[in-house]
């Protein structure tokens, strides 16, 4: 009888000790800041585990930290498990080290894929100015195509007529949408008379 209590006690102590090794009961945060994350799909790991999915923000930037806390003197090594589909690539600054205190210096920077925004122009007899928000371009008389600045994948675009040509009125079709995985080439400007 006595020995069975002892055995159970030993097993319990062992279990407690093992839990302590799991890393979930530390006191220190491991994280930092991120930039360029506008879509889900970015998952970070620490020493190959503790998966952390980064929630995108409207500006693409924010702070992040693993849900699992770490302990003083723990070695950490942050790596990518996956990246969002709309990035050219992502890099991690200060990915590894040994925790002395909370670690807020793991910086993740993603560069978004960019795509051309262009289209056709018909019957333009004067100078026209097009805008996609803060970006704008002057289209000379006689032009049959236009190019605005490249736009990041998954961001909206909206082409408007900032300045009409003299004595003509131009309209835009297919002028607005969300940039997909390819260049936008179907914006059509038609001028009359």
């Amino acid at each position, binding site marked *: 009888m006595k020995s069975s209590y002892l055995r159970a006690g030993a097993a319990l102590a062992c279990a407690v000790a093992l839990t302590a090794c799991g890393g979930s009961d530390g006191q220190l945060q491991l994280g930092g800041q991120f930039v360029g994350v506008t879509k889900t799909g970015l998952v970070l790991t620490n020493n190959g585990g503790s998966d952390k999915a980064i929630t995108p923000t409207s500006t693409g930037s924010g702070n992040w930290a693993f849900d699992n806390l770490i302990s003083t003197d723990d070695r950490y090594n942050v790596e990518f498990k996956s990246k969002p589909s709309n990035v050219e690539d992502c890099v991690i600054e200060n990915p590894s080290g040994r925790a002395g205190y909370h670690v807020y210096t793991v910086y993740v920077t993603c560069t978004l894929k960019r795509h051309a925004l262009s289209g056709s122009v018909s019957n333009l007899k004067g100078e026209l100015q097009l805008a996609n928000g*803060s970006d704008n371009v002057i289209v000379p008389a006689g032009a049959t195509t236009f190019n605005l600045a490249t736009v990041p994948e998954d961001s*909206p675009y909206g082409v*408007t007529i900032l300045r009409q040509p003299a004595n003509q009125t131009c309209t835009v079709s297919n002028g607005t949408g969300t940039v997909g995985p390819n260049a936008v080439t179907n914006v059509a400007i038609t001028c009359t008379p």
Partner: protein
Amino acid sequence: MKSSLIRPALALALAAGLAGCGGSDKAEFVVKGTISGIVYPGAVLTTNGMDLPIAPPAKAGDPVSFAFPNKLEYGDVYNVVFKAEPDNQFCSTPSQAIPNFNDTAGRLAEINITYACGIDAYQIGGKVSGLTADGLVLANGSTGGTVAVAKPAAGVTTPIDFGFEAFVPYDSSYGVTVLTQPTGQFCTVANGTGIMKAATVSNIAVTCGPVVN
């Protein structure tokens, strides 16, 4: 005899010592610094009764260095502020820097004031009329953000107001389009595009009606 020689020597030494405190080699401090981000003319800095006009940099994007003509003496308090900001700009201590425009000459070996200027920005918005369904999303290009406009609550009549969260800087273009049409409706935008003047834009008119096939 001896003592009479010592006395004038002492007096001379004392005089020399006093001269050292006040005369030609006293500590003087130039009130100077740098300003980043200046684009437009019109800025005037002021401190200790001096006004100093500041012109934009010769090469766009470069910081502008300044130095007030009259030097300050040790212990003089200076407070370098903008009597006038550059046209269409606002200036302040750069973020993540400690304000250093108001201090005492001599506390640091050199005075080196830092300011950063940004371009004034204004909101764009307007009214939506005829909206009876959810789902309308307006966009200002690719970087100007989006705004979702929900259908008005019961009892609220259109037009209803909308505004973009992201402000548009002076002299920047903007262009508002319908990114997503409301369910079963079709909306068009009037006065949606222009070049930002120094005032809030509130005349963008979005008109919604049934889809015409």
